[in-house]
């Protein structure tokens, strides 16, 4: 109890409050900037914590991590470019809703869902860390592979009207993940002698091209054709709409917490699982169908990616190992302060643990308030003339692509992906299946090989030995069969 009181004192001290305010503001910024992400942001701030007490340092870094997961949705909604990998699913409905004239509604839905997700993730961390961590450990190579296959099965439901085009886009994504050093044998594949491609095609670089650069091309085209007249409203959500996204946010938060706690999965997978879940549950009554600006399509991924923050901290505190790339940086930061992440932290450094808990919850509140305040400003972005906006986005994209690895090579890569994205858009190939395939491809491939190495003589039977794997694979088959049936069934003409 003393430790709780001491931690409360730390969080609400001048230093504690200042670090939450600064952490949240910096987090929203790095999240919204494509190319900068939570892990880069935390890594950049680590040296700043050297002069702080470990408690205040942890509060600062966790606030940034949390807010960055929300920040990613701002650019996803306003300019159709996810600021972070975990906001890719938010583009699907957030951007159309914004272009339809409701950026205020999309941003409010994202902020509300993010806050709910963040708080539920934090509560799960405080209350149920032990059982969730044990569940997370039941994921080995076999289960990861099956989880990845389940994720790939979702593609069929994300394909929109045209299943064949969706599968085509997914195949392109899978083929692209083959580039780079083979994760198991170490042999280089399809690198054509470019050592820039050893680690594969960098995912964020591809994202910037597919979303931001392709969007710039579209803007230029639209500008040439017509010019812009749409009216944008900064109006937020009505009470009815708010109630509408509440259950969605709760479900998304649960998915996010659990997926976040499984090391090696994380927000970029959670956001799609949550999105797909809502899409399946949706009835036809919704005013906007999924893919055209459904509020629930914004709330689901946004609640889940913020819930992964609490989730990813679960293995950090219970097992001493990171649950995401960002928490991996956090482990390094704790160690510099002489703290060993893991269960011993609860005994030896109680104030650090409780400060983290209280700080994380309070950071959610600050994030909500700051989001409300900032929203009026961000909505103005869409009022910027298309020509200016397009040029700014293009310049920012090039800077982001370069700064990720400081390689000129990546600028060309981004431009190349921009062209691919634009062609796909023009020929109505959906982007989501390709992105999902690029996220899941490496996970499925390396864990498939790993599982077979473990099985030795047993071969593929190993996938049926684990009950969890059987469950995941069965759901995958059902999901795929159901969507394929729905996708291929002749469409009854439904009035819009």
């Amino acid at each position, binding site marked *: 109890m003393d430790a709780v009181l001491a931690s409360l004192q730390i969080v609400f001290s001048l230093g504690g409050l200042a670090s939450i305010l600064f952490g949240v503001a910096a987090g929203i910024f790095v999240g919204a900037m494509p190319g900068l992400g939570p*892990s880069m942001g935390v890594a950049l701030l680590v040296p700043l914590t050297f002069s702080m007490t470990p408690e205040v340092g942890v509060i600062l870094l966790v606030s940034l991590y949390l807010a960055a997961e929300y920040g990613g949705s701002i650019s996803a909604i306003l300019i159709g470019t996810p600021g972070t990998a975990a906001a890719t699913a938010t583009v699907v409905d957030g951007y159309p809703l914004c272009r339809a004239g409701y950026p205020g509604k999309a941003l409010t839905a994202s902020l509300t869902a993010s806050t709910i997700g963040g708080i539920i993730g934090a509560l799960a961390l405080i209350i149920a860390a032990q059982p969730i961590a044990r569940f997370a450990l039941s994921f080995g190579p076999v289960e990861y592979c099956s989880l990845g296959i389940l994720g790939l099965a979702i593609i069929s439901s994300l394909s929109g009207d045209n299943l064949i085009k969706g599968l085509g886009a997914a195949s392109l994504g899978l083929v692209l993940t083959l580039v780079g050093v083979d994760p198991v044998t170490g042999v280089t594949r399809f690198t054509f002698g470019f*050592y820039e491609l050893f680690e594969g095609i960098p995912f964020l670089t591809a994202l910037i091209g597919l979303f931001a650069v392709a969007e710039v091309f579209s803007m230029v085209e639209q500008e040439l054709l017509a010019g812009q007249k749409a009216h944008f409203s900064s109006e937020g959500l009505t009470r009815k709409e708010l109630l509408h996204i509440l259950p969605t946010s709760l479900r998304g938060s649960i998915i996010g917490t659990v997926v976040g706690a499984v090391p*090696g999965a994380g927000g970029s997978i959670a956001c799609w699982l949550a999105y797909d879940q809502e899409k399946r549950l949706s009835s036809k009554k919704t005013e906007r169908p999924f893919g055209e600006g459904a509020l629930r399509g914004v709330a689901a991924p946004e609640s889940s990616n913020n819930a992964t923050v609490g989730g990813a901290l679960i*293995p950090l505190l219970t097992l001493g190992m990171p649950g995401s790339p960002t928490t991996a940086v956090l482990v390094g930061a704790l160690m*510099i302060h002489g703290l060993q992440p893991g269960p011993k932290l609860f005994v030896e450094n109680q104030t650090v643990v409780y400060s983290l808990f209280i700080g994380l919850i309070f950071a959610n509140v600050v994030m909500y308030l700051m989001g409300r305040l900032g929203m009026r400003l961000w909505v103005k972005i869409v009022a910027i003339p298309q020509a200016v906006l397009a040029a700014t986005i293009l310049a920012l994209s090039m800077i982001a692509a370069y700064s990720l690895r400081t390689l000129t090579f990546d600028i060309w890569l981004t431009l190349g992906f921009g062209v691919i994205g634009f062609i796909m858009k023009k020929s109505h190939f959906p982007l989501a299946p390709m992105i999902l395939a690029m996220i899941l491809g490496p996970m499925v491939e390396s864990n498939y090989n790993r599982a077979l190495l473990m099985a030795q003589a047993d071969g593929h039977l190993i996938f049926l030995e684990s009950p969890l794997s059987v469950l995941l694979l069965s759901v995958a088959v059902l999901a795929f069969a159901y969507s394929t049936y729905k996708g291929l069934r002749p469409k009854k003409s439904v009035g819009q």
Partner: protein
Amino acid sequence: MRFSTFLCSLLAGAFLFAAPAVAAYPTKDVRLVCWSAAGSSLDVMARTLAVEMEKSLKKPVVVENRVGGSGAVAMAYAMAQPADGHVLLTTTSSLSFTVAKGNVPFKVEDFVMLRAVEGEPSSVAVLKDSPIKTLDDFVEVMRKDSSKMRVGGYASAGFHQFVYYKLQQLGKFTGPWVPFDGGNQAVAALLGGHLDAAVITPSSASAQIESGEIRLLGISTDTRSDYFPNVPTMKEQGYDIVEYLWRGIMVKKGTPADVIDTINAAIDTAVQSESWKNTAKARRQESLSYSTEELSAKAASEVQERKTFLQSIGLLKK
């Protein structure tokens, strides 16, 4: 946005027009290029070292992460800079694997290995309730029937598999290796019962080792590690394996000898500082001290060793 662009161009301009000085090294900021991502072990080493080196070099030492191509991106960058000691490069024993595989267009001899300042051993780990108690038990089980035993660790054809390969040679057994994308993932797989044994850096599971949940059968240090005094070395159990994953600093070949001396002196002072020692202790790093000549010779001989290893596991043609 426009303001920050303006600021950037202003800064860039300032660098362009900085007149070349003839004063003693360092005449300008020193860049310490790290080929791992921010937050990685190598990055933490670089950043801790940089803070201390600044004090003796009297110029800012800026850490830059240039990730990619198994270090090739950082090496290519350093090779394109003048050999005047203003660009330092982190280095680790993984360099010898990369060079041995022929994955990078560089040789160890293209650089001068200045210092290895810290290192971590490998170790064989099992769960608390495993019937295997010693390294001899493990070797015996593997010799009898390795077809049901699942053994793995971080990376394919890397440091830990190399140590496991040496153990196989000395213990005269064979068995597959399950490579993971990170040391932590291997530890998680061991804890979750997906692996029977993992070959890991002890610090990646310190919490579980201290609580007794994970038992280390043997560690690849020369003498018992201060951090894990209860863990017997592989050497004392009759398996002569002394291997460290060392981390240090190198510069481009051709850097003047007096500059190298200045940098070495700065590193040596840095690793004597309290803050370096405390950080190293918190991160459970073994302190290593090789002279420049010793380290260069070591790196070169490692490349030969790694080549034999890679050939024997079929990843390199003879």
